[in-house]
């Protein structure tokens, strides 16, 4: 139609060549991957797939390695992972509008309890979960208070704060009070954009004993006290949403200290060799569980996955990738070394008594009733 110049011809020919090469390469790679997959001898793919929502980053990578590859190999059901950063909002939106496209979700314990009570999660009978190898039923194998009516599997993880060693060549922070001490430790801080844990940290640092934190928070004066304490550092805080942000801020010296999850800091220090240090004093210990989103069209497969995740060997396998301790006695006994680096995992576990000098157990009863309220209040507070 149009007369082409020589250079256009040349260009076209080259593009075609490049495209052909790329297509061939893609085809070969797919073929290769399919073949290596087959070598491991898994169940044939059923064409079924589940969407599992977790927290992203090295944590989700560890889950993929420890859980989902093995699950696909055993059942032929593929697992697609998606990220979120906590809370029930997206689940609620899906359930209430009747368009559920998440199947399994990794939640903080208070959210499992609240979502269960509100019908956002499928009920799971604890007696359905696989027993311990010695035959102990799951009900007796779980640590006290660490199972719910809607959850399966389970980890203990902790919110701590960490600092960059380079920021404090002389005296370094060692207590939760130091996080709020701008005089002795000047510089910006990173905190999660959520009332969770921040209110507890504030009260602990304000001198409330760990055992009384929730009793104090339950009163209007106690809530005001927590916000007042946060006010004292508000101008110096950068707020983070996803777990990747606080470690980035620490590495960039954008903040001198930041709250984070202990497993994330473990990954940064042990695997990535970053100069970060965890302050265990005042750690807030919490439970995490997987739960099934109510009304998922793939209920049977989702249940299958939840039971798979609750097996002792799988719960223990995860603890070889990430320093979150299993919530079942028989799995916690199997804690050993980090698979990739050979590091002993026990010193990095939040449940190690050496790390539990001053520890606050997250009270999910309180947060189940107050999470929405406090989030609303916190959001308004942030904007003032």
């Amino acid at each position, binding site marked *: 139609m149009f007369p082409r110049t020589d250079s256009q011809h040349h260009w076209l020919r080259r593009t075609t060549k490049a495209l052909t090469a790329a297509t061939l390469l893609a085809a070969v790679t797919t073929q290769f991957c399919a073949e290596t997959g087959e070598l491991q001898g898994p169940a044939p793919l059923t064409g079924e797939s589940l969407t599992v929502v977790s927290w992203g980053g090295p944590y989700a990578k560890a889950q993929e390695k420890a859980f989902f590859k093995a699950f696909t190999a055993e059942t032929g059901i593929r697992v697609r992972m998606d990220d979120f950063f906590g809370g029930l909002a997206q689940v609620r939106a899906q359930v209430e509008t009747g368009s559920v496209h998440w199947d399994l979700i990794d939640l903080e314990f208070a959210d499992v309890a609240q979502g269960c*009570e509100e019908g956002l999660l499928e009920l799971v009978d604890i007696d359905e979960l696989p027993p311990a190898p010695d035959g102990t039923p799951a009900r007796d194998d779980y640590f006290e208070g660490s199972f719910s009516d809607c959850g399966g599997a389970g980890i203990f993880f902790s919110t701590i704060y960490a600092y960059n060693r380079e920021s404090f060549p002389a005296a370094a922070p060692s207590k939760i009070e130091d996080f709020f001490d701008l005089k002795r430790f000047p510089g910006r801080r990173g905190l999660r954009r959520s009332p969770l844990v921040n209110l507890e940290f504030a009260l602990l640092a304000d001198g409330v004993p760990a055992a009384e934190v929730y009793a104090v928070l339950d009163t209007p004066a106690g809530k005001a006290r927590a916000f007042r304490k946060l006010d004292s550092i508000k101008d110096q805080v950068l707020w983070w949403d996803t777990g990747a942000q606080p470690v980035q801020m620490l590495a*960039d*010296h*954008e903040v001198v200290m930041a709250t984070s999850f202990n497993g994330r800091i473990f990954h940064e220090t042990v695997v990535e060799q970053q100069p970060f240090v965890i302050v265990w004093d005042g750690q807030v210990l919490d439970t995490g569980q997987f739960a099934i989103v109510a009304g998922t069209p793939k209920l049977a497969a989702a249940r299958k996955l939840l039971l798979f995740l609750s097996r002792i060997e799988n719960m223990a396998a995860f603890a070889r990738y990430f320093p979150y301790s299993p919530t079942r006695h028989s799995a916690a006994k199997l804690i050993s070394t980090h698979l990739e680096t050979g590091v002993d995992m026990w010193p990095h576990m939040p449940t190690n008594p050496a790390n539990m000098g001053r520890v606050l157990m997250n009270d999910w009863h309180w947060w189940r009733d107050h999470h929405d*309220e406090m989030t*609303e209040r916190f959001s308004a507070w942030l*904007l003032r």
Partner: protein
Amino acid sequence: MLSSPRARAGALTLPLIAFLGVTFVAPLGTMLWRSVHEPVVADALPQTLALLEAWDGQAALPEALYQTAAGEFRQLQASRALGGVATRVNRVQGGSRSIIMRTARELHGAAPASWREAMIAAHPAWGEAAIWGAIRQAGQRYTIRHYLNALDLEQDIQGRIVAQPQDQRIYLKLLGNTLAASAAITLICLALGYPLAYLIANTKPRWSNLLLLAVLLPFWSSLLVRSMSWIIMLQKKGVVNDLLVALGLVTEDGRLIMVYNMIGTMVTMTQLLLPFLILPLYAVMRGIPPLHLRAAASLGANPRQAFLHVYWPQTLPGVAAGSLLVFILAIGYYIAPALVGGRTGQFISNLIAYHMQYSLNWGLAAALNFVLLVCVTVILVAYNRLIGIERLRFG
């Protein structure tokens, strides 16, 4: 039916009308409907609300009300539907959610002698008027409270419209910040864009093409990438600060804080929006014959006078179009503030997104949306009065 040629020609616009209906009128309509229609509590607590209707907000409440409310709470709790109701009451009055949920959990046993006493034993708040007022208000099927809320107002228990408590007034301030920051961004864009557009319009074609390419180039990369790269530029150990320290303009400890605040938002948005000002301005400037300036000079005008009296007035349609475009785009921006704005550099759209995605208070999100829509409309009308929409030229 389509007999006349006119009707047949008109039928050609049907796809457009359908498109506008689906993409513009329907969502806007749904949004407005949501901002005034709130059926959840009304559907869930019909009997309790019927009993509350006659109440004046002061008189002691009858045992029958306590019994009915307790019954409905228990029923909703059993069907796992109470949480949604409690959350909505909580939006009227903070703190209500935990009161309702706790009470429902404690009322599980056999019927007590007095429901009133049983509920007050479960939570003392039931002996006071506030929570009942909140339930009554949340139970209004058709309501203006989202609009009141969006304007930092609320209804008290007698139904009077009063200001929100001091610590909950956030939206008007945020709206003011958004408008002010958008205006500032527009002015900065104008200051940066006007000379550049002039240069592109009046230099040799080879250079102008190159400059135009430089203006358009950022469009080819993702908005996210452009926003994120500003973090790398502006952060404490970022490119700009490193340069300033190397030049000795700031000390190592005095590194400037330019990101995760309003400065970060303004810098990023200025860069993102600059092309929208340059392009219409350039198009208009290219249409101004250079002869005009020479004619002015030959009639004795100095360069300043020639610019002010001959050139500037002719570029006004482009200036108006470009700045209007930038201003309106800026008001609705939300990704850049979310990424680089930190706590203080947020725009009203970030709050709308928050209520859409996280608090799930869609009624309030819709009301805030409508307030924003009204602002934009007012600005457009004012612009029309001052300059005349038909005089705007986008190229």
